[in-house]
Each structure stands twice: as structure tokens, then as C-alpha cells.
């Protein structure tokens, strides 16, 4: 982890305490998770106690304090996707990857997350792999998509 880069992100936000969440989001965007070292640095430079940072990182769902897999799978469980069978898509993906929502496999290949609406409801059910959207996915097709990832 590159501390100067973390410092730069903090400085981009003028090291303001009120920008804590924005800073953590930016760090997370680069690492896909929040290493302890980064949090220590943020606490030090913003002069906020670690327990407040911990409160924030556990309250907001966007943050993760465990490493993520090389490929991130997001399955939308929003209402529109739900009525069009999102649960079955999720079950099939769980089956195919051997992990449940919120988990990362031991080889750090996949992380599986659920989200509550990606704003593409018309295409439901929707899954996103590494930022690439797949709309109107059927369970069998979801499992097929994952075969393309190493």
C-alpha cells in the first residue's frame, strides 16, 4: 500500500474531518477494501479517533475491511429484480462459486455481493461483474458468464 497516495487523497479533500466518508470512499475505490494501515493514516491526518472511523466503516455498506477477490460480482436484489427472479440468480451463482453473498473465496478469485438496485431496473434481473453489466440474466446464463473469468 502506498502511503503517499493515501496522503494525496486526504489532501484532495483538504484533510477536512467532514470529508471522512468521501476520503474513505476514494481509498476504497482504489483498493476495493480498507487496509488497517490506511485507516491509521486517515485517523492520524484528520485527527479523528479510530472508534469513529470504525463506526463509519461498519455503518456504511460500501466499506470493507477484508480483502476482496480479483473479480467482484454484484447481484441486484432490488424489488424489480426480485420479482423477476433475482434470488434464483443469486442461488445459482452461490452454487457455482461456492460462496455466499458477502463472502470472498479462498483463492481470492471472486467476491460476491448483493446490492439493492443499480438503477437499471428495466433490465432486471441485473448482475455486474467487474463493472460490466448483464441484464435480463437467467440463472443458467449467470453461471455461464462466470466461466469467462480467471
Amino acid at each position: 500500500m502506498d502511503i503517499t497516495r493515501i496522503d494525496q487523497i486526504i489532501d484532495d479533500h483538504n484533510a477536512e474531518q467532514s470529508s471522512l466518508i468521501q476520503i474513505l470512499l476514494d481509498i476504497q475505490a482504489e483498493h476495493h477494501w480498507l487496509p488497517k494501515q490506511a485507516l491509521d493514516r486517515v485517523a492520524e491526518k484528520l485527527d479523528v479517533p479510530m472508534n469513529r472511523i470504525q463506526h463509519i466503516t461498519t455503518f456504511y455498506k460500501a466499506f470493507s475491511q477484508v480483502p476482496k477477490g480479483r473479480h467482484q460480482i454484484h447481484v441486484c436484489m432490488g424489488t424489480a429484480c426480485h420479482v423477476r427472479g433475482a434470488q434464483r440468480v443469486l442461488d445459482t451463482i452461490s452454487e457455482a462459486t461456492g460462496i455466499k453473498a458477502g463472502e470472498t473465496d479462498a483463492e481470492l478469485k471472486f467476491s460476491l455481493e448483493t446490492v439493492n438496485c443499480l438503477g437499471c431496473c428495466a433490465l432486471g434481473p441485473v448482475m455486474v461483474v467487474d463493472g460490466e453489466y448483464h441484464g435480463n440474466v437467467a440463472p443458467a446464463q449467470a453461471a455461464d458468464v462466470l466461466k469467462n473469468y480467471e
Partner: protein
Amino acid sequence: MPRINSPAELEEFRRSILSKRSDDRPCITLCSGSACHATGSEKVAGAIVAELENHGLTGQVDFRRTGCHGFCEQGPIVVIYPEGICYLKVKPEDICEIVSHTFKEKKLVERLLYVDPTNGEKSSFEHDIPFYKNQQRLILGLNRKIDPKSLEDFLAVGGYKALTKALFEMSPEEVIGEVKAAKLRGRGGAGFPSGMKWEFARKAPGDQKYVVVNCDEGDPGAYMDRSLMEGNPFTVLEGLMIGAYAIGATEGYIYVRQEYPLAVDNLSVAMKEAERRGLLGKNIMGSGFDFTVKVHRGAGAFICGEETSLLASLEGKPGEPKSRPPFPANKGLWGKPTNINNVETWANIPVIINEGAEFFSSVGTESSKGTKIFSLVGKVNNTGLVEVPMGIPLRDIIYKIGGGVPKGKKFKAVQTGGPSGGCIPEAYLDVKVDFDELMKMGAMMGSGGMIVMDEDTCLVDIARYFLEFLSDESCGKCVPCREGIRQMLKVMTDITQGKGKEGDIELLENMAMATQGAALCALGKTAPNPVLSTLKYFREEYEAHIKEKRCPALSCKELIAFHIDPEKCKGCGSCLRKCPANAIEGGKKTIHVIDQEKCTKCGTCIEACPAAFQAIGKLSGVPVPAPVPQEKRALA
């Protein structure tokens, strides 16, 4: 032209933009909203640029990438002007034909036109497609005419006229008076009169005041705010600035959920553009009005849409709500008077100022004025965003615009208002949609999510689904919400898993009352709504689950089984090849059977079985027939 220093300079700039444009000029537009992006509009854009160049048309045909048109499932959408020819589901390989046929020979590419699923009729033009024809798109309509990052495009459609009028021709009180006279009610959920709210903030004592745009849009299944923010950020900014002027605020915040990166990008570009031209910042257009604005990304918490939580989050804290009063209008961000409105509410302001309160209040019903954007999704033929005048019957939205329920299935209910809303059954489809009528139905306007459900949707499961969502999203600060929702969810889960007991319904009703009455914020107070409304209209479905261990919609996983009818199975093997769980046994010319132990109930086999055979079905509440013995499976 650099900075714009007066209304006259703005008009001069606008004239110079318009002089280079004409309604007759050929233009190809491509929707580049999020959904179209997901269906491949990026590649289509590349193809358009290349193909126009190939044909030497680059300087003669304009190419514009716009925001969401609303008809997202049909994307990527290409519209060709001046005629307004509309092509749907366009692929990069179609572009060559579009350019050579439509531009060069003025002929249509038939296969890309809209086909009405109910009668097979084709529509060549955007304005002929029933989905669009029956809408009144006062707010959303501009999306398709402009590139969201282009100030020039925005000015070409009349942008900043309302701001100029407010700043130079109206006093803050007059602006508030106009919004009050228009009877605009907030589009974020509760429908509070916006003009009144502005007045509270204006009258609140304090030098420093804030205005905030709520683009958290946590409602699952709703995406109108996304579409507006992505597609027309300038209009939201313009509305916000008019509000700031009226209230006396000089700083604003735009709270956007981080799941909406394109909205953040387009908004940031728009803000920079506006700043560069002096339409944001100090002394805007020489009026003496200063206004700066910051974007704040959310971090994935539904409760942050609630205004007091949103403010806490803006201050860099966990988004836990506070009890009100004091209201944000008096004590908001950093204890200062603050006015929060929803994205769509802000977007309505320029329309009110430009067209006047009289026009605005001529649209809609007595108690709900103007139009409302709904996100019409679920089991409906034409899914997408629809903007309609308040008071339109639900039936018109679902059938005239939405084209009804797909695959000949029966309509069952429509869920409105998201997790705080309710389900409306067929018998009430003629209700006129406005804030109060929906409330009377035990549903709600909410942010405008409208999820259509057909006979295959289990409404007990839908109510359970919302409880699960809310149990996850409850901030946990107060006990009635934290525990009440959790306990209701437990009972509901048991019911959908066939473990329901006599008395569960009464227990649910009691818990619902307690949670409604005692929770601190509206999340907890409204959480029981989906349960209560489904109990009201679909009680027999609860009873079937509890008493007969049967899911009438054949949807609850624990209560159903998949079964191949040995009389109908032709041994084609389609289901076996598709089954992801290897749960199907069979062979050439052999009756196939499902191993109930292995089956994960994913439903793939039903879709895989050819329509001519339809050999696979679902069972609930009855035992699965024993499989045909091995030796009798061979087909003649």
C-alpha cells in the same frame, strides 16, 4: 465567450448557439444513460462516429449522446432527427445500414422499429410509440434533446431562463409565492408542500443557510432521480439555485449515492461548465447572488435518504436519524437552517418559474399538481420511466403505457411507494394516482416506484422481501424498529417456508401496530405497510401458506417442487442440458425425471422445455408423484 456577466450576455450567447443550429439539420442521437450503457451504447457510439466518417457525413450530420429516454429495456436507443425516427435495441453492426439507408436513401430499417407486443403493429417515430404517446414529459422530456455535459445544449433548450427571471425580475418572496401558488409537493416521498418548506427556511433566523439535493434514491426498483441527474444535471442545478436565492442560501450540497457513478460524473462536468461561465460561484450573471455547491457521495445506506440522517452523513458522521422537531429548516446542517428537496422536486422548479404557477397547477388533481415520474418495472411489457400528469388512472399507466402484463399472464397487483408503500390489487386499478388517493389505498406515492406483479408473484413473499430489506437497513438506533421489523420478518419467513402457525396473522398485526406507533423515524413507522396492505387485500394467500402449506403463486421455494409430466415429456433433453444442478436424469427417447434431492428449484428447466411440450410444471401443497420406474421410461 468566457464569463457571462449579465442576462443580456446570456441571451447573446444563446442566440449564437441557436444560429448554428436548426430543427431541419440531420442529427443522430444515442441514449447513453446507465441502462443503455449496460446494453452496449458505448460500442454503438464508436460505430456511429466511424460510419459517419466512412460516408463523409461527419460535418453534415450532428451526433449527440443523450441521457436516459426512459424506455430503458429497449436500449440502446437511437433517434434520428429531424423526422424523429426511433430505432430500438441497436447494435454496432446495425449502424452501417442506418447510415446508408436512413441518412442517404431516406428509408427505414424495419427490423429496428418498435413492435407493439399486444397487436404486432410497428411504430416508426418516437411520438407514435404507445409508451411515449400517452406520457406528458415536462421534466424528463428534455433528457433526449441534450448532451448532459453540454451547457450549449442546455441553453439551446431554454436553460437558465428561469434562473435569470428569478434573479432579475423576482424578489425571493415572489419566487416562494410562485412555488406555493403552483402547489408543488415534494417528490421524495411524503409530498410536503415545497413552497411552505422554503418559507420556513427563509424565515428561520441565521445568516448561513444551506440547500441540499437528495439524490440518495435508496428505494429499490426506482431510478427516476438517477435518470434526471445523469441526463440533465443543469436543470437540477438551476432549480437548486433558484431555491437558494429564494431561501437566502449561498451554499449547497448534492448528495448522490455512490452506486450512481455516471450521475456524479455528469454532474461534476456540469458544475465545472457552469462555474467557468459564471453561472455558478460569485456574483452570478452580475446579479450579486453568490452560490457554490459541493457533491457528496453516499456510502450505501438506505437510511441516508431520510433527511436528518442525510445531514449527519454530510457532516461526516454515521447516518442516524434524529427526532424532529427541530426540523432542518431551523436546525439543519451544522445547526444552520437547511432546506432539503428531492432531485425531481428541484427539477420542477424551472418549469414553474418559466411557465408560471397557473400553468403548473392546471396539470394534475386538486391536491397533487404537475406530473410525476414513475419507474414502471417488474412484470410489465414496456418497462421504464414514465412521466404522467397526476390523477391518471393506474390502469392507463399499466396498460396504455406499459402495454400490460407479458406472456399472457394475469395481472395480480402493483406495488407502489417502495418499502414504505403497499400493494394495490386489480379491483382498484381505476384509482386516480395522486398523493392522497394512494394513501387511501394503504399504499403510497413514495419516490414513484411502481412494480407490477403477475400471477407468478407471491405477495406474502413480497411483503417478506420488504421486511428483509428494511431489517437490513434499519439504523438500529431505536428498539421498536430494530426489533419490531426483525420479529415480523421472522414470522413472515416462517410462513413462506411452510412453518407458519395458527395465530401468526394476528401476531403480525399486533407487531405492525406497535412498530408503526413507536419507531423514531419514518423508516420504522412505515415498515409495516407492505405487510398490512398485503394482509388487507391478499389475506387468503397468507392462509394458504399457513394452513395448507401451499403457495398459490407457486413461488415460495420451500413450498414448491418441480415435476416433469411423464405423459408430456418427449425426451428431447433440453431441460437436462440446461439444469445447473445436474438434477435431471434422462437419455435419448427416454422420459426425464427430476431428482428432488438435487433440485435447487431454480426454474431453468421450465424455460428450457420447448413450448410445444410444456412438460414441466410446479406443484405446491400436494405430494410429488413418484417417478416412473426406470424400465418404463423408454419412449416409443
